[in-house]
């Protein structure tokens, strides 16, 4: 995927703010994710595993998801702005988080116990839904955050000096 994204340049775009857009989108996407966790009873199971309250679990989860959203914005760069494919990229990212986080990190962090039964289904669906929501809302959250072209075009590095590739003497 890294090679593939490189065709478009790793730059997220000169007028874009992918980290803040990703973080905000990550927070927005927790709404359906928390709802699914609650509906499947996964939230209380996770709280029990982590030996804390449901509220604390959510409170800790939201900034983590903001961070994960920022990582998504950073990794996917321009691709994250694709309205058509964003849900799929986000879902893939959510699946990867589930695989790495829920399947590996949570059991290790808690010493082995992991959600099972319906709680495991809820955890899986919540992270996939979080990813799909993240990828879906990211282009729309990002758009108003873009720097204005008029202002960005005044930057010196896009001016005539861009023609020179060697060091100045």
């Amino acid at each position, binding site marked *: 995927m890294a090679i593939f994204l490189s065709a478009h340049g790793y730059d997220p775009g000169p007028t874009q703010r992918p980290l803040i857009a990703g973080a905000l989108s990550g927070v927005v996407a927790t709404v359906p994710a928390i709802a699914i966790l609650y509906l499947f009873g996964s939230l209380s199971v996770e709280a029990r595993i982590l030996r804390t309250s449901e509220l604390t679990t959510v409170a800790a989860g939201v900034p983590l998801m903001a961070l994960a959203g920022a990582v998504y914005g950073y990794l996917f760069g321009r691709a994250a*702005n694709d309205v058509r494919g964003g849900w799929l990229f986000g879902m893939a990212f959510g699946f990867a988080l589930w695989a790495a986080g829920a399947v590996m990190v949570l059991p290790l962090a808690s010493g082995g116990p992991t959600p099972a039964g319906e709680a495991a289904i809820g955890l899986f669906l919540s992270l996939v839904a979080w990813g799909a929501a993240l990828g879906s809302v990211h282009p729309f959250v990002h758009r108003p955050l873009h720097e204005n072209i008029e202002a960005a075009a005044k930057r010196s590095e896009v001016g005539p000096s861009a023609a020179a590739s060697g060091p100045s003497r």
Partner: protein
Amino acid sequence: MLRIVAYHKAILAGAAGALVWEAVLRILMLLGFHSFDVVRELGTLAFPNGSAAEWWPAGIAAHAAVGAIWALFYAYFFWARLDWPPPLQGLAFAALPAALAALLVYPQLRLMHLHQDIAKLDWHMFLAGLEQTRLGGLLLGHALFGLTVGSIYTHPVGYPATRQCSTPPTSKEPRNHSGKRVPADGRFIFATGIECSYPTTEQGRWRRDEMAATGHYRRWREDFELAREVGVTHIRYGPPLHLIFLGPGQFDWQWSDEPLAELERFGPEPIIDLCHFGLPAWLENFQNPDIAAALAEYADAFAKRYPWARFYTPVNEMYVCARMSALDGRWNEQLRDESAFVRAVVNLASASIHMTNAILAARPDAVFINSESSEFYQPCCPDDDIQQTAEFENERRFLPLDLIYSHDVSPRMRDHLRKHGVGDEQFAWFMASKPPKRTVLGLDYYEWNERLVSGDGRARALGELFGWYVIASQYWERYRRTLMHTETNRADAADASRWLWRQWHNVQLLRSAGVPIIGFTWYSLTDQIDWNRGIEKPLGIIDPVGLFDLNRDPREVALSYKHLIDAHRDRPGYRECKAVTEVIG
């Protein structure tokens, strides 16, 4: 946007893959094969104690949905990465979901089926979950899935040449519609373009349509607004000839009416590109001698329908079109034959002249910008054969322009034309048809336009050896016509700003040498599709050459171009450009 994906095909392919998997594995299981039953595993999550009539529909629906998502993933990230037959690409891809299924999903499914909230997870679950026969079934299922997806998911861009494109040119008003018109009259032209190539491939059966692939038919209002935002005065614009010109006397103007009304009202001023590498299916290809009369009819109808349009490119890049169609065997007639090449050149040049005359009859003050690829061939070594090949190529590059500008050719080229079917009478007709006064020679330049004729006689791209200044000077010396830099871009997006400014300095230097130049163009407004492969194969790979990507987010070169335009447009010599007023005047 990563890649152009045909969603309906991918979803169909993924669902079909899941169904083939189920059909084969179900039969094997009924025959006693002990396999992993993915449909039962998924279905019983929803109906833990349900009958087969309950879990089977739920399971197959879930599996088809998962299959569709994997197929979309394949379409975005894997398709066309390997130059293999499509079924084998699908088979290779299937290794990824197979590995995830065996190592991750299967143990997790077992967890999900437990009748408890919390379980102890150990490494044994990851590594010892599947018996060999069940693992065999899982791998066989994935192989069938991959082969099916790979077989079905092909041709994500384009459509059968005999079918009309199904997307009508509707476009929503952009949120930030400025309604601001960039002044153009008498000023130096700063232009961009909408990439609009529409050749056929696969022996005329498959139509490439860059405007459809880049989403322009859906987003044209937004595209025009972006062009205004950058500050360009003109836009090279080629309404889709193959969709508009349905037959003699039959035109479907819905493909051009609204976009051109928007350009007329708000700008940028269009440079109308009437024939861009393709023909309607009913005209077949460029070997057809009737295209000149037919395209003249189209030009006449077009000029009468849009009487305000002033700038025209009757036929875009005739040399490239003839070469790709009749010499390199890649588009349209797909021939590899010198006589076919000469025939294509003659037909294209004849069409250009007839179209020009038709437009002049409707709009006598029309300006013609004959865009052509600026080519140069450098011999690698002092070998007589290599030298002669380079000399011949350097003469042949001029051939279409020689014909439309009535410029005599060398005795050697004249003999060559005779040998390949151009009679003296036909040649004399070209030499007698003088081009109109308001004619501009547009010269396109890319990093592959300078070529080295190497020891084996093949031409290889040299990169920017001498540059646009030197190559354009050769064309200027030959034709002495006002010039315009009508296309450039850079395949490496990270280097595009540097390339833009260097091209611009070439233009400035040639202007300062006294050559009349009316404009400069970054081509195109958005990224293009499959041009790194000459749009020969319908792969849907995006070339990041635009001012904007296909999400319509600016690339750095858009900022550089705006910087360049802002810095120059009101300077003396650009605000009132003598070369422009002389051409328009």
